[in-house]
């Protein structure tokens, strides 16, 4: 599947900046355009306008009174830092890049800018955007709504080494497999395909199909057979093969939301959710 544009949602957090670097590399690899977007969360502004508004420090646990002006200042400063980081990275890696600031509901604003075939890059874990929005659901919703993919990353943002992809034969899975192939192609990295179907026979059939698809692309792959999608098992297998990137199909009947959620949370490396 051809990625035309990479949209990266940036705040100024360290994970977000690490993700920016890795995402820009992907954009360079695919010769895609890069759009940096900073969303000023309207909910936070509204909360700050409440007369008793105060926040609890996430480490100190201390109370702080906030007002909309505070929040706006925070937004401005974050947006400036995000813009400057994006420009520097894009220039260094020679990627065409633009930057936008939006205000509103984060999900809506992101959906608003996404077009078909876009890849959206989000931070996950901790206080990241994806974590705040709910990992699995957001990724699935956005990916589905935009007919694109969502890449979620923690502090390990760079896509290196082998890639694991979950394949169940549905449309989204075909696209996920194609995207995974794009991720390993040209890097001489291995592709691990986890074939999930209700029966053993069905998984073998899936493996044959997947192998054929992959063979066309000239990528080396290994198949594993699973009769149910269990998040810890998926993570463990991926770790066993030393993969650092996981590719999951969105809205696949074999991959419920909570499994996507758990994999996104527990897998240390980047997780890419691809819509069908």
């Amino acid at each position, binding site marked *: 599947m051809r990625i035309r544009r990479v949209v990266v949602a940036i*705040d*100024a*957090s360290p994970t977000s900046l690490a993700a920016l670097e890795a995402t820009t590399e992907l954009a360079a690899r695919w010769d895609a355009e890069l759009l940096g977007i900073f969303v000023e*969360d*309207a*909910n*936070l502004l*509204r*909360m700050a*306008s*409440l*007369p*008793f*508004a*105060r*926040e*609890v*420090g*996430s*480490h100190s*646990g*201390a*109370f*702080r009174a*906030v007002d*909309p002006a505070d*929040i706006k200042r*925070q937004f401005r400063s*974050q947006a400036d830092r995000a813009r400057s980081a994006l420009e520097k990275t894009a220039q260094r890696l020679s990627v065409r890049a633009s930057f936008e600031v939006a205000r509103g*509901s984060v999900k809506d604003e992101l959906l608003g800018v996404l077009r078909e075939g876009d890849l959206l890059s989000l931070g996950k874990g901790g*206080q990241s955007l994806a*974590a*705040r929005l709910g990992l699995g659901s957001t990724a699935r919703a956005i990916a589905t709504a935009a007919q694109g993919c969502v890449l979620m990353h*923690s*502090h*390990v943002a760079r896509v290196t080494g082998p890639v694991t992809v979950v394949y169940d034969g549905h449309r989204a899975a075909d696209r996920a497999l194609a995207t995974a192939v794009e991720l390993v192609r040209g890097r001489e990295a291995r592709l691990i395909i986890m074939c999930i179907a209700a029966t053993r026979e069905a998984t073998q059939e899936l493996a044959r199909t997947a192998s054929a698809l992959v063979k066309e692309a000239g990528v080396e792959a290994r198949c594993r057979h699973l009769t149910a999608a269990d998040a810890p098992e998926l993570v*463990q297998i991926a*770790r066993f093969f*030393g993969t*650092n990137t996981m590719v999951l199909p969105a809205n696949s009947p074999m991959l419920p939301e909570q499994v996507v959620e758990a994999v996104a949370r*527990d897998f*240390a*490396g980047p997780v890419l959710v691809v819509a069908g």
Partner: protein
Amino acid sequence: MKELGPAALYRRYDPEEFDFETTAELEDLTGTVGQPRAVAAVEFAAGIAREGYNIFALGAPGVGKHSLVSHYLEKHAETRAVPPDVCYVHNFEEPDNPRLLQLPPGRGVDLRRDTAKLAESLRAALTGAFESEEYQTRRQVIEDEFKERPREELKDIEERAKQEGLVLLRSPVGMAFAPTKDGEVMSGDDFRQLSEEEQKKIQTKVEGYQEEAQKALRQMPSWDRDRHTRVRELDREVVEAAVAAPLDELRQKYESLPGVVAYLDAVQHDVVERARELVEQDGASGEAVVAVGPKGPDRKASMSRYHVNLLVDNRGTTGAPVIYEDNPTYDNLIGRIEHVAQFGALSTDFNHIKAGSLHRANGGYIMLDAHKLLRAPYAWEALKRALQSGVLRIESLGQTLSMMAVVSLEPEPLPLNVQVVLLGEPILYYLLSQHDPDFEELFKVASDFAELMDATPENVKGYVRLLATLAREDNLRRFDRSAVARLLEYSSRVVGDQERLTARIGVIHDLLREADHWAGVNGVEVVKAQHVQQAIDAQINRADRVRERVHEQIALGTIMIDVAGAKVGQVNGLSVLMLGNFAFGRPSRLTARVRLGQGNVVDIEREVELGGPLHSKGVLILAGYLGANYTPDQPLSLSASIVFEQSYSGVDGDSASAAELFALLSAIAEIPLKQSLAVTGSVNQHGEVQAIGGVNEKIEGFFDVCRAKGITGEQGVIIPASNIRHLMLRHDVVAAVSSGQFHIYPIETIDQGLELLTGMPTAARQSSGEYPEGTFNRLVETKLLELAEKRRAFGMRNGADKEPSD
């Protein structure tokens, strides 16, 4: 007076008496020759081997101190046990005080190899343990459990808040609760439109949840601590299991060495405690990276801490060590601690401890040159401190002097059991004895090397074997017996004694090499007497430019020396000039003048401070002789002056006192002295002539001058009879004596010398108390009595109470 025949002038060694043709037939000398006193001292000290019984071997350079001492020490060392190997290992409790391990000889190198392997296998074991499925899973379980906890806590709060129409918002720096309206956060305006009661209610709810959230967040550090403890426990359990096998194996191997077993226990404890530091685990990739390099400025543990630094390896050693440290600096003696520069700072650890020669000599002997030792800054002090304290403590000089401020170590001191032999010149021994109060306590044994030895048949035999040994060691040509005889004669000449040989083997060793060279130049395979002679002549030739100049000036008359005729108050004295190692004789004209005076003999040399104390002493003795011998009952009423003519530098020694007396007596008696004879010898107050030094050089010096000015057949030298045994004259001088061209007269008394120089009889006082008529002594006595009479008359003329003034 009887002159000496040629046989008395030279001790000749007859080659025919040797029972060999060339030195190739002789066996190597085992042991030494001619130093029984020094050998006894070394053997005594090596045998007693108690604290303070260190040796100072004193002797002139080249007497063979080094080879003799090392020979005897090696002999003793063979019978002693091989000392243990010495290692330093990391001290896990006090990293700045590395621990000492002493192991049976040869085990040190084993342990070093085994611990290096151990470090390797620990690295693999730790990496394996941390990467194992078991560890990863159990670790993940702990991480997950603690990761879930705050989430669960907050999720619960969030759920309950949601039930009550509130939403939890996460901002970049924290979290907040807000009421919702139509699924959106309620704005301030909407909120204000609510009734006061409702506003109050919402605010109370929000504040309640905020406090709950705060409580949950404040628990996080303690959860983190719990998590940390659980992970540590897991680490410990896994690491203990992983490292037990390689360590058990080693413990078994070294079970007979409790020190090593204790060290291995400490290693195990440390590995378990520091496994995390040793394996820097990259959480995301699961890759384990083991720190292997030297520790950085943060002193992070690395695998090199489990190595063993083997300082002294006695594997394959037999007996106790005998070490000669030829550069005894502070560091070379007691060892040093090196530093490595890392990130701009100097750091070190026990692996950088370097052994000194005292470490290597421990349990045996160490030989040091006293002069070098004393010249190296602080080395002597350090050696004394080590000997006094009985332990060897490695401290950098900077540390000792409190001058350096880098991180350094204080390794556990090594118990020291070493016998030190200092080699040096006697003057150093006497200076140290006098000025260093510790010296006598620490160096109780002096091994005194003689500079010469008696030429007994036994010593000669040993000496010859020594020559053969030296020649072989240096890969020199064979020396035939004529060459050996010449070498022995030269050795006697060096010490100036027919009955002795020089113990300064260095001098003879040089001559051996040079004679070998000349034999080579002449293209022969066996060194003969002529080559030895060639070497001697070449040595002299290289050194005698000044002698030639002096003799040339005498021949030209610039320096006035008469070698024929007779003069009143003038005699040829003889002196020796030393230039470096080369000595030669030079005749000097000595003159004396007398006049009426009050009995003082003026030594002009002393008056102008050119004469040394011994010279002045000689002059005063002859004044004593003069008065007591000739005018015991009268005041000595003359004033005499004595001078070395044409002497422009200092004169010392009393060997010219006999000559001075002859000149003085000649001046008093106004009887001329033969200028064909030169005189050497000192005199005492009784007129006995005493031995002097440098007799050979003096005779040869006068002979050379006579030859230059023309040999008359009358010329010769008067020497003290007690110097006869010291004669080892040049062959040309001996030949001249044989043919009657030159004469050597030994005398015992001044009277004998006077008879030779004046041709007049002397004779002793008669029973009447007078000297017989017609004798030289009678003339002197008469002259002195005349002077006394004149002085009395002079005194009467000028008033009885007045002394005649000069």
